[in-house]
């Protein structure tokens, strides 16, 4: 079931990309796109589709939008943060690698969380081992696992849990 959903999501995404890159008004492109996307989605050449972890209830869809909004805000904030640190004459950094622990269990959720951490202010995911992520933090504020988790992923984890726990 999960596998089927993952393959369906993969098919929709591939077909969408195909139609955007070609001309969606021509029926030929639809036929070619459907054939290619179906083959890529069904053939067992590629690893298990992680998209199967996606939940598709209305609540989850709203969750996705909320996540996208939080993510965009964090991305802008992180860039202002980078701008501040780079242009500051004293280069205010106190870097270190801290461990955090996530509640998310699905591969997709963990992938998105790791990516989100990398694109938010002052943090980069260096290594993941199961539920423990090691984060390079440009300005270490908390060394304790629990406190660091709260400071770095609190909001993202909550939002991601809604649609890909």
């Amino acid at each position, binding site marked *: 079931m999960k596998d089927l959903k993952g393959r369906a999501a993969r098919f929709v995404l591939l077909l969408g*990309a195909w139609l*955007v*890159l070609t001309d969606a008004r021509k029926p030929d492109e639809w036929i070619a796109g459907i054939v290619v996307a179906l083959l890529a989605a069904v053939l067992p050449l590629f690893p298990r589709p992680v998209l199967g972890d996606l939940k598709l209830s209305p609540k989850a869809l709203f969750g996705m939008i909320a996540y996208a909004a939080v993510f965009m805000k964090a*991305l*802008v904030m*992180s*860039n202002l*943060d*980078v*701008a501040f*640190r*780079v*242009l500051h004459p004293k*280069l205010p*950094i*106190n*870097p*270190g*690698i*801290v*461990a955090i622990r996530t509640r998310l269990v699905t591969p997709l959720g963990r992938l998105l969380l*790791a*990516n989100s951490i*990398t*694109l938010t*202010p*002052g943090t*980069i*995911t*260096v*290594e993941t081992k199961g539920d*423990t992520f*090691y984060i*390079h933090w*440009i300005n*270490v504020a908390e*060394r304790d696992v629990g406190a660091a988790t709260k400071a770095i992923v609190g909001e993202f984890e909550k939002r991601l849990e809604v649609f890909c726990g």
Partner: protein
Amino acid sequence: MNGTIGAFLALGGSVFLLLASIGLIRMPDYYNRMQTGTKATTLGSILFLLGVGVMRPEWLGKLLLLVGFVVLTNPVSSHALARAAHRIRDRLGKLEKAVLAVDALADDEAAETAADRSDTDAGNGEAKHA
């Protein structure tokens, strides 16, 4: 009008790309260079692509697809680089010392190897140090 808005978006993107390059020169070690190199280039590219998309609306779909790819792949590549850098940190350290106030990953790895050495039962040792 569209041209002006697009041009300003693209200009904003270029500013972030410029900041990323300044960061590459100013930051003291590879992790911190990666910090600026990842974040600023992601937003820089996004703004630049959106700016072009506003100037030429007929390309917007393709450019949005590019934005999606950049957002998905940029953090993954920096994650891979950071991980590789951490794994060869002893050799990298001869060229350039990483500035780290705390390194939980190295500490945990050291604890794991120590547990493996002292404990013949690996599963037991890992549970103790988890």
